[in-house]
């Protein structure tokens, strides 16, 4: 019996197309293709052609593992003649540790958006990201991660002089609460916005004119988190305080009691801890928001724009571009037990994701119709990690002490991200003048492209088995993940061959390619 099971696992685990989740994925891919095709037809739009292998490889790598492919990966993929190589690539990337690390980064940008722009809260992002990474490594599905986040222990240890709580040692998502000032109403709004797509912030002060959410409901949601605010002057919340279920409304004498947004009160006999009660309600399969909001975030991370966009502001004022498709995605996500990989696998193998981003017809320009792939900006991390890969830079491991104290690591990567931070790969991400100057003339990239210091330049210029055409090819593969066109080869080959100083000419080409528009976007 045991032997049979092992044989079964061996046979089928090695054949990913036969796993249960892939059956769902294939069906979902077909649904996506049908829905998008219908909508394109109805709008009289001309779909762009299928992206070539290089475009697909670079896009998928940036989206799933947060960096461009290596030269070896590019060569292997481009030269692979098998017909299912894209599906195999998807499976390989989804199974890699880099996927988990990248997914944790995405979670961090969603859970602690403050940490992206505010150096004061940057350390909270570091700790929350580490916690998520650990959860994902153990195989947590999204509902589990959300449940653990919402019911996290709040054992604040002590206070900083400006009365902010210091986190307990060890991995913990408490940074999420700290980033929201340990205020019940701020935490409540963040939870509603992040997982339900509902903006309650405005309703905290007054009933929102365009929304059906009332001030009372906003405070009733906040009341679930009444226990997250340690009562001063106590250092730790005394036992029992964590189970606070009521909250004073702002500066008034009124009291709000924990109540779900659908108007139902929790059954305190089942769940005495209000946060547990809220978490259970939130991830219930019949919650009309959670699966849709989360599935829409996955879509948005891959297309640069959500079916509902902005992704955290749902309501009659912001309706989905493809409502049925959204329902399909949510249903499949829910049926998979909130496993985002099922969604990702289905979406990246759809026609829409595999289209070129090259604009070939005027009807393709609306980013919300998906007639071509959207060009996305690179996040600071995607940009740095890709530059590091292209130039052969290896960042020193950040000192643990740096992370513990929460300061951005003083490594080149930390400094770069501090300088380029502020976006998370949206389609409208832009770079500033200073960022452009830093890429063109800054010390770090100058060193990485320097003929005597840059690891990649030195190797490409000196290895004996490459001729000049081979050098140009490697430079293209290592930066743009494709081989040069004939025009490009005709431009760079004489430049390299005619150069007195080959290493310097190699460094010039590398500099040009990493500063090119093509390198600086995910297209």
């Amino acid at each position, binding site marked *: 019996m045991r032997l049979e099971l092992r044989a079964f696992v061996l046979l089928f685990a090695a054949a990913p197309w036969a796993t249960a989740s892939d059956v769902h994925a294939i069906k979902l891919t077909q649904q996506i293709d049908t829905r998008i095709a219908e909508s394109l037809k109805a709008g009289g739009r001309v779909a762009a052609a299928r992206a070539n292998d290089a475009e697909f490889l670079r896009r998928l790598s940036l989206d799933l593992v947060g960096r461009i492919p290596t030269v070896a990966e590019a060569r292997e993929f481009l030269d692979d003649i098998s017909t299912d190589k894209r599906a195999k690539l998807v499976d390989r990337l989804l199974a890699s540790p880099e996927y988990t690390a990248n997914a944790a980064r995405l979670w961090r940008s969603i859970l602690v958006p403050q940490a992206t722009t505010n150096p004061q809260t940057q350390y909270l992002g570091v700790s929350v990201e580490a916690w998520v990474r650990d959860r994902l490594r153990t195989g947590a599905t999204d509902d589990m991660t959300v449940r653990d986040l919402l019911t996290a222990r709040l054992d604040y240890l002590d206070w900083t002089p400006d009365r902010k709580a210091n986190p307990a040692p060890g991995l913990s998502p408490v940074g999420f609460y700290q980033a929201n000032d340990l205020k019940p109403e701020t935490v409540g709004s963040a939870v509603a916005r992040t997982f339900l797509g509902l903006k309650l912030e405005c309703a905290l002060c007054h009933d929102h004119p365009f929304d059906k959410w009332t001030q009372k409901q906003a405070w009733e949601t906040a009341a679930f988190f009444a226990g997250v605010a340690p009562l001063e002057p106590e250092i730790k919340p005394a036992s029992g305080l964590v189970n606070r279920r009521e909250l004073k409304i702002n500066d008034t004498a009124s009291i709000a009691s924990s109540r779900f947004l659908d108007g139902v009160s929790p059954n305190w006999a089942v769940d005495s801890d209000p946060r547990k009660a809220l978490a259970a309600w939130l991830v219930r399969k019949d919650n009309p928001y959670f699966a849709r909001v989360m599935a829409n975030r996955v879509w948005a991370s891959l297309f640069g724009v959500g079916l509902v966009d902005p992704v955290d502001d749902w309501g009659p004022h912001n309706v989905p571009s493809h409502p049925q498709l959204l329902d399909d995605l949510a249903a499949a996500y829910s049926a998979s037990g909130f496993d985002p990989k099922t969604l990702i696998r289905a979406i990246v193998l759809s026609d829409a994701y595999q289209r070129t981003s090259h604009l070939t017809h005027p009807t393709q320009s609306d980013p919300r119709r998906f007639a071509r792939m959207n060009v996305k900006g690179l996040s600071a991390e995607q940009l740095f990690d890709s530059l590091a890969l292209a130039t052969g830079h290896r960042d020193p491991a950040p000192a643990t002490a740096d992370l513990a104290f929460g300061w951005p690591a003083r490594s080149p990567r930390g400094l770069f991200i501090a300088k380029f931070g502020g976006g998370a790969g949206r389609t409208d991400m832009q770079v500033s003048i200073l960022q452009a100057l830093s890429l063109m003339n800054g010390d770090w990239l100058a060193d990485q492209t320097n003929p005597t210091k840059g690891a990649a330049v030195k190797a490409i210029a000196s290895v004996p088995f490459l001729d000049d055409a081979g050098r140009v090819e490697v430079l293209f593969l290592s930066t743009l993940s494709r081989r040069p066109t004939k025009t490009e080869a005709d431009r760079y080959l004489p430049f390299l061959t005619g150069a007195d100083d080959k290493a310097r000419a190699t460094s010039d080409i590398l500099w040009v390619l990493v500063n*090119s528009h093509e390198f600086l*976007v995910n297209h």
Partner: protein
Amino acid sequence: MLTRRDWLRLTAAGALGASASGWLPALASTAAHDPKRKRSCILLWMSGGPSQIDTFDPKPGTDTGGPFKAIDTAVPGIRVTELLPTVAGQMKHLTVVRSMATKEGDHGRATYQLRTGYAQQEPLQYPTLGSLVSKELGDPAAELPGFVSIASRRGLNDGGFGAGYLGANYAPLLIGNSDNDPYVPTPTARALAVPDLKPGPGVSLGQAEARLTLLGEQNAGFAEEYASAAVSGVSAAYDRAVRLMKSPARAAFDLDDEPAALRDRYGRNLFGQGCLLARRLVERNVPFIEVFLGRVPGAFGGWDTHAKNFDALKALCGILDPAWGTLMADLTDRGLIDTTAVVWMGEFGRTPRINGGSGRDHYPTAWSVVLGGGGIKGGQVVGKTDKTGGTVEDRPVAGPDLLATVCAAIGVDPTKQHLSNIGRPIRVVEKNAKPIAGVVA
């Protein structure tokens, strides 16, 4: 008649041909007398929240007044602290608002609110005032960016310093904000220089030229073929960066052009030289420049004077007063005062109560800001606090009202709406904000 662009081209050509000394006065007078000259704004930002009682709302002889005397100013009846004699001499150009009444006493959130006019609401990032002004008054074809931020300290809150939903085209060009000790007693040329304008280490000028030529060829057609916000953002940033690298306008950042005596009057420190740089940028039609004054020797918390407030105020005002006073005089001398608004503010004021450590704590309830220069009716005081400075007794002003006033003074319509990156139109300043009555000229 010359178009604005023609004029720019002419001054650029002049800059190439003429010596600096011959060119500068000509530039100043052209700038001042161009009938189509747009207005500029210089924001003097006091990081940490300056004490109003020890600056512009003195309460001598009261429990809360502290040790400093009040002195007369150039405008009879208006008195300020003795720490600001040079600024006092410029009072006919200044309006003191003594009735700021806000609600936020946290550095980060208050900074965000005062600098953007909105409460922080993730994930929508509101643009800071400088980005809004740069969008409204900036010339996309100009060689200098429309918003320059000098010596900014972002430790307290990064939000509220950037272009937010307006995008990186309106982000500030940051100068003198080194991560290392930001206070440079005698700023070298590098302290206020644009970083990375010259080719990186090991790259010759000729090589840089060749690279840029190749880069142009490599990029040819890409922005059209892959037309999108992402590509046009990259393209615009590189275009402006290369323009700045090659432009004679970068000479604006070379303070060695200025007479040593004038540089001395501004003060040989980062803030003083920053104010001088601000004037040079105004001359070159940069619509918004901000200069930060925070941490200085003797006041390492900047204006956040929870302890030893009075010692810190002496140190801070010792730098503030000559720089700001000289700036007003210099703008006047060059005929720029009527088109350049100057705003002095922090994120809140400080308690009238003096704490046990001779300090004053955060106080948003009643505090002061100062508006001056172009578009502002000078020589007056707006609003009033009670005898000890604890409450506003007359004409309370909210943060968005202040921004609406600045907008009106420099000719930006505060009711104009921008489409945010999340597809929702947002007003420059929130709907209920009104310019302070009687302040805009």
